[in-house]
């Protein structure tokens, strides 16, 4: 079987350069590729366009790249958790393309699945649809949205095997599966890397064909944004 393993995060990011377009999995801070993000900071890769549902918080996740002004443009659906983001956007330092969340997910999936564009009702009649083709099907209006074009996808899974197969845990799944195979190169980091054959083929969330490089992340902080609990009675 084809072996997708790379030694570490350094090897995983070979070929990442300034001005590239990058996809990053995660919803809020849940399921983000922590190791890849740290390596992007370390390498001082600059002027990148990031496709990610959110922009992290000021001192974690994509917020780290924002602090260093490595990001030229963000394509996201919700960015309300990050003050530095808001400052850079309002001052015009940062270009921002806000995209409905379902549209964002499907623009990834379209790229993964070889669809050039798709019609969605989301955003019709709003500024999101400005300058875009709209069309009626069966009496309902839709907006034509193009697939993303991206150089690298960075995703985070729970378990992975050497063939690149991935399994996610809980809602840390979110955008990660949609971004696999949606860029020229997909880099998966996992909490646990196991040999090919250790995972049940029926229970793979993302087949290895959508992943070019896989490595076990050194550590995961997994910060919680809103710790809401029911008190012990």
């Amino acid at each position, binding site marked *: 079987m084809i072996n997708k393993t790379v030694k570490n995060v350094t090897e995983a990011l070979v070929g990442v350069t300034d001005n590239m377009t990058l996809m990053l999995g995660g*919803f*809020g*801070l*849940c*399921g983000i590729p922590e190791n890849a993000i740290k390596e992007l900071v370390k390498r001082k890769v600059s002027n990148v366009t990031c496709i990610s*549902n959110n922009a992290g918080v000021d001192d974690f996740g994509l917020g780290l790249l924002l602090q260093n002004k490595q990001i030229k443009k963000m394509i*996201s*659906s*919700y*960015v*309300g*958790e990050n003050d530095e983001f*808001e400052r850079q*956007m*309002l001052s015009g330092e940062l270009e*921002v393309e*806000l995209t*409905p*969340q*379902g*549209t*964002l*997910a*499907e623009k*990834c*999936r379209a790229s993964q699945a070889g669809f050039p564009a798709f019609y*969605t*009702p*989301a*955003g*019709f*009649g*709003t*500024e*999101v649809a400005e300058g875009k083709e709209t069309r009626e099907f069966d009496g309902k209006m839709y907006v034509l949205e193009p697939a993303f074009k991206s150089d690298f996808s960075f995703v985070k899974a*729970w378990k992975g095997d050497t063939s690149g197969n991935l399994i*996610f*845990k*809980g*809602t*840390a*799944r*979110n*955008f*990660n*599966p*949609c971004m696999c195979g949606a860029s020229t190169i997909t880099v998966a980091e996992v909490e646990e890397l196991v040999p090919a054959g250790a995972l049940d083929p029926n229970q793979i*969330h993302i087949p290895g064909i959508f992943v070019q490089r896989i490595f076990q992340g050194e550590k995961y902080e*997994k*910060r*919680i*944004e*809103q*710790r*809401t*609990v*029911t*008190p*012990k009675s």
Partner: protein
Amino acid sequence: MALTKNQIAQRIAQELRDKWYVNLGIGIPTLVANYIPEGIEVEFQSENGLLGMGPFPIEGTEDADLINAGKQTVTVLDGGSIFDSATSFAMIRGQHVQLTVLGAMEVAQNGDIANWKIPGKMVKGMGGAMDLVASAENIIVAMMHTNKRGESKLLKECSLPLTGVGCVTKIVTNLAVLEIKNNVFHLLERAPGVTVEEIKKATEGTLVIDGQIPEMRL
């Protein structure tokens, strides 16, 4: 007496029907889950990829890998499921979710809704709201009748950038329950002790008052 936020949620919960899948937005809508009527079963969908969302976890059992769309730690009920974002919006766009409850900054009498942006001021993003309002067959807006400056949020036309067009069917505010039909607001119920006149005054859009308007039952 105008309703509290919890009472707005309680009134909205009366709209739930057996076997409905329901998406609750952040804020007042989230509270609806606390008032599910006896004898019906509903399931809550969280657009980050969770069906059968349960209550907040018991202290000490919270899991960073299990959150809702508001980024709060939650639980999954027996029979729940986890899925990716594309599948989540397949559920929403494919109209498999029977009811969406969300907040709004403005609602217009033609059903337009604005809740994601104040130009030059607030730019948090639309999240999943545009997908939800563009697809849901049944949308209830939960909000205060007026804003912090006392201005009506039920308008002839929205002044803020739209989230969706002609999509809102029902509104539950601290003062009233209203329906949108034929491009006007129809007053259905008053909050206990609130007069039709008070509601009229707080509503900028055209308000149709047909016969006696009953008080809500909570």
